[in-house]
């Protein structure tokens, strides 16, 4: 706990809190369960992707192809659903197909990063433009709406437990599951290890390539899940619907305190990052802020958050006495 108080997560938590308090004052609506659930739901897709991105960034990598991969899976899912009968099997099938597709695409990234040793940002930049191009070529942007989906999927999309949408639950489940992997499995610790020091990792016999491939495949896996969430959320497939989402995802993760250089990052931090971005978007309308100024605010808040955090960090570092000086 004490460490948490000093942690990066703390500074982001503080910012979220301040923002929330301000919003509660400017708008009565903000602090209603209804609104907060909407915010969560609206950001579940980003959240799921951000959780995966956290692992990637912990290893010192980055994946700008997430949005592309997700849309690719969405599109294929959509096409499959056109021919699906309306029964439980279809739903299960979707939950099989989507993740597998994601994993395959992710593994390709992982392979290029680990075996061919191309920097992650470059690989994923390449795969991103390839996937986006192919999606556009194949679908020609064709938009699929819910009429073409099996009804069971719509039911799934509308499913709620205690008023909490399945989409949110999916996000929460993924977050917890990933947190568990990170904290309680060997591979999870190895993710942190190679982020902490690559050479040491190799010397203690950690299979560097394997871990990287895992991380990118897992990212792909979550992209598959995110695709399901996205389709359930919009009840439609819009091949262009996710363009540019990757930057939001990355922003959420680093706002959440993950170190872009690798070695540091937590799921709860990322969760906070997602929430921060979420309530900024939500708050801007609730606070009746003119459309034209909304981006100014968003940008300013991102800058403040990252700067504030960095300054905190420096302070702490300077305070941390290096020597026990004799009185």
């Amino acid at each position, binding site marked *: 706990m004490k460490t948490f108080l000093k942690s990066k997560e703390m500074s982001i938590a503080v910012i979220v809190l301040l923002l929330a308090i301000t919003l509660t004052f400017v708008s009565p609506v903000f602090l209603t369960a209804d609104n907060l659930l909407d915010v969560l739901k609206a950001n579940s897709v980003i959240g799921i992707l951000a959780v995966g991105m956290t692992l990637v960034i912990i290893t010192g990598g980055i994946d700008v192809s997430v949005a592309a991969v997700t849309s690719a899976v969405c599109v294929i899912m959509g096409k499959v659903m056109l021919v699906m009968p309306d029964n439980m099997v279809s739903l299960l099938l979707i939950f099989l197909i989507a993740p597998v597709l994601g994993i395959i695409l992710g593994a390709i990234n992982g392979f290029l990063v680990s075996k061919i*040793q191309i920097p992650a940002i470059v690989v994923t930049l390449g795969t991103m433009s390839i996937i986006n*191009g192919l999606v556009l070529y194949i679908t020609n942007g064709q938009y699929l709406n819910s009429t073409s989906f099996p009804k069971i999927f719509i039911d799934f999309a509308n499913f709620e437990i205690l008023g909490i949408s399945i989409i949110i639950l999916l996000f929460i489940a993924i977050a917890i599951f990933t947190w568990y992997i990170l904290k309680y499995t060997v591979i999870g610790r190895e993710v942190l290890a190679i982020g902490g020091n690559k050479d040491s990792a190799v010397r203690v016999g950690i299979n560097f390539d394997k871990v990287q491939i895992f991380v990118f495949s897992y990212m792909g896996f979550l992209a598959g899940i995110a695709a399901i969430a996205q389709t359930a959320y919009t009840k439609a497939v819009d091949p262009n619907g996710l363009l540019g989402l990757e930057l939001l995802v990355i*922003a959420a993760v680093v706002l959440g305190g993950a170190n872009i250089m690798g070695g540091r990052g937590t799921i709860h931090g990322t969760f906070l990052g997602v929430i921060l971005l979420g309530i900024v978007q939500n708050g801007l309308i609730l606070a009746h802020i003119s459309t034209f100024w909304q981006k100014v605010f968003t940008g300013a808040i*991102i800058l403040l958050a990252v700067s504030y955090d960095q300054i905190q960090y420096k302070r702490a570092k300077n305070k941390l006495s290096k020597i026990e000086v004799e009185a």
Partner: protein
Amino acid sequence: MKALTLSKENILGLIALGLFVLMSLFTPSFFTSNNLNNMMFQLPEFGLIALAMMVVIVTGGIDLSITYTAALSGVSIAIMQSNGYPILTSILVGVIVGLLCGSVNGFIVSKIGVSPILVTLGTMVLFEGIILSITKGNSVSGFSEAYSLIGNGYYLGVVPLSIIIFIFFAILTGVLLTKTNWGRSVYMVGSNPIASLFSGVNNSRVLMKVYLYSALLAIIASIIMTSRYNSAKVDLGSSYLLQSVAAAVLGGTEIQGGYGKVIGTVYAVIIFQILSNGLNLLGVPRSIVGVMMGVILIFVLVLNFLKGKLDEKKQKRLQEAV
């Protein structure tokens, strides 16, 4: 022997040449004065932004706000012009605005020490917002005739003015990076900031200058664009953002910093230009053009990788032979 040890830049040059020949052979109306000319008009704006991106990447950073910096300065020029201010005054204002953007990035990166990708992610959104709140999203137009010559005019009636501007700044960048104190420090800071700090280099000044210079290149690009398109708008050149990163990297710039050559980036830009223009003339679906570029990017890097492996093997064999 020399032939065997081609630098990655040279390989790239050969690829560019090969593409050019292929296109000339198989694409009707590619190798026509008309089209070559056309490409010379298309290349500079992207080329300049790619160079701007490269300089930042050499320091181990990245500038996601580059296109909005360009757009913001472009918009301010447009506003000045449409309010009847003389060209030079307008451009001056545009330059100042652009440099301000650069200095915001430079300050937060070098003085506060936030990692560039985060800073520029923030400023990207911020600058876009500023433009939106100024222009209400509308495009600003009304440039003077003379202004439109910058992007559309010819030098000596044959060579597009813009390509000359590009060549000038490409050379300038090359000289600055390789022959000046600052340029050398850029590579040093990019390779090992701590060591360069301990060698009496003022890292934060070096970085500040880097972001100012890349902003300057972006401004030049935006002057060419606004003049060519005779209007400025929030999304001016926004499609160049990730392309410019790709071009820099394809050009051999190391994303983790410390290495990068102007000539490499220029070759990369040329490759993209030929590819896009040629494929368009061939009537290849435009989405596929994107695919092709991604493929080329990865292909070249895989090539470099294999080449590296090969060289190692060769070295080894030479050794054991001894």
